[in-house]
């Protein structure tokens, strides 16, 4: 295993992680809810009575780049994936997280911190599936298709 020291960012990643954990801790303690992005967003299809709360959370996510932008700390995402792959990947992420009842935040952060066996298994499965996919794309098929 070769470590990519050039791109390794332990301190910003730890700092960001602490903020993510803080948000999850606040959500369960103030709103009584588990901070799972896919479930908060996916619960809008179809909308129910708590739609305003879900949309407020989504609005907060959308406003985050604007907030960090004030401090010139928001780096736009750099995509090198072609459009077809993005569409397929988006459909898989949307459907898969709903079928599996959670994503990186719901299972990976909240579920594991509650020691939920379902979330520990789900996190292991999506990590392994992600690792296998990147292995196939980068090392078997070759260079990722760039648009």
């Amino acid at each position: 295993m070769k470590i990519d020291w050039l791109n390794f960012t332990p301190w910003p990643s730890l700092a960001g992680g602490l903020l993510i954990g803080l948000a999850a801790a606040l959500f369960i303690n103030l709103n009584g809810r588990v901070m799972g992005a896919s479930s908060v967003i996916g619960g809008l299809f179809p909308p129910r009575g708590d739609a305003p709360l879900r949309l407020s959370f989504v609005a907060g996510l959308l406003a985050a780049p604007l907030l960090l932008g004030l401090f010139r700390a928001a780096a736009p995402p750099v995509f090198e994936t072609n459009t077809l792959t993005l569409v397929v990947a988006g459909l898989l992420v949307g459907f898969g997280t709903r079928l599996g009842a959670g994503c990186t935040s719901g299972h990976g952060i909240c579920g594991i911190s509650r020691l939920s066996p379902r979330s520990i298994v789900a996190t292991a499965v999506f990590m392994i599936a992600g690792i296998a996919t990147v292995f196939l794309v980068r090392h078997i098929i070759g260079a990722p298709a760039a648009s």
Partner: protein
Amino acid sequence: MKNLIAFVIGLIFGAGLLISGMTQPEKIFGFLDIFGRWDPSLIFVMGGALMVAAIGFVAAGRRGKSLLGDPLSLPSKNEIDPRLLAGAAIFGVGWGLAGVCPAPAIVNLGFASAPAAIFAAAMLAGMAVYGVAQGRSADQ
């Protein structure tokens, strides 16, 4: 009031995702590429998040309700069923293809980025397809 709290929590969550690098597909690919040049940064994201979230869940669990007096809405399912495994596997493949998971997909809509918008639109479509297929379901 509860909606304002949810907005601020979304804002903190989004800021954390941006600062940690979770919104950069290359950062995700670097973490998942354990057979290439591996970037272990996301372990620090998860480690930091788990430490604080675990304290929060223990505190909330002991109290048994939220500080505003609402009951805790926790997942009730315990069984590891095929739906969980299939859903996690499908999500993992999509995550490995695009390097974006649900929350960063929404955060990245805050930038004027066409690829981010395409991914987010497809993700919401995938969620809507599930919603139509399954109707309402209570989960996390």
